[in-house]
């Protein structure tokens, strides 16, 4: 059983489930990256921050944190939004210009949301190049089949 006043680390889904503004079962301590000190860093220059190391789910986790009553919520929300705005342009540009090259350096410091956006940009670029080369009409094998071909399965006839 838990003593009143004990402090522990629990997963977000559990904290959300236990949270109740009327009953006050738990109170939450903000992770340091969303606190004032770090928020100042973000507002100075969001582009230099390694969001993969800090996150890697900086945006979605931060948005979830807003579910808990915290007087700093408006500032947290503002910082998350501004961080995204200032980093987005660079991500979009690099995803549209890196063709057929090693992009690991470009995505190393991105959080997962930004990586998904980067991948979307890359897919658009690759699809366009494919079309330019006249390969858009080429019928390809189902990717699901290609994966199964590589792995061994016990054969089951009939």
């Amino acid at each position, binding site marked *: 059983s*838990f003593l009143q006043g004990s402090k522990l680390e629990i997963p977000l*889904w559990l904290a959300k489930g236990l949270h109740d503004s009327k009953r006050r079962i738990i109170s939450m301590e903000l992770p340091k990256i969303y606190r004032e000190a770090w928020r100042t860093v973000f507002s100075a220059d969001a582009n230099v921050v390694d969001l993969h190391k800090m996150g890697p789910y900086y945006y979605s986790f931060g948005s979830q944190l807003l579910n808990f009553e915290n007087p700093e919520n408006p500032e947290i929300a503002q910082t998350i939004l501004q961080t995204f705005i200032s980093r987005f342009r660079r991500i979009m540009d690099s995803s549209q210009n890196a063709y057929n090259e090693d992009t690991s350096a470009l995505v190393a410091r991105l959080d997962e949301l930004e990586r998904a956006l980067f991948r979307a940009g890359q897919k658009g670029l690759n699809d366009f190049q494919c079309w330019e080369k006249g390969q858009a009409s*080429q019928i390809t094998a*189902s990717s699901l089949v290609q994966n199964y071909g590589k792995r061994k399965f016990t054969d089951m006839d009939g």
Partner: protein
Amino acid sequence: AASCRSRSEAKSGRTDLIFLIRFRHCCLLRNQRCVVAYLYDRLLRIRALRWEYGSVLPSAIHFHMSAEEVEWFNRYKKSLATYMRSVGGEEGLDLTQDIKPPKSLYIEVRCLKDYGEFEIDDGTTVLLKKNSQHFLPRWKCEQLIRQGVLEHVLS
């Protein structure tokens, strides 16, 4: 004083109970959510198989599907077939064909594995042996290419 103490004890006992019930309920909901997410992801892949691979699933995949998933696939197939018959006039419209815009009626294909005899529309048959190349009607080859038997060769 005695009654006060027992009342606050009862109250704190109730709070403990609320906490435990809530905790357990959270965990149950979490487990349920994880399971449902997993099953849903599988369903999306199974659905994609109908479009990418065809209406008959490879035995290796079929082996790993639950009875409910097989049933779902069959019902989805039927639903899709009914819909395709209802559009495009008399013969219906096979929406699973020509997913990439076709450029010509005939295409060059290379055989990736031994398949055997393959009959084309005018009655003639072709022997699909590994590494052999053929010039065949696009609509006949499409499914075999998607299944990994043939490879579409661009000139």
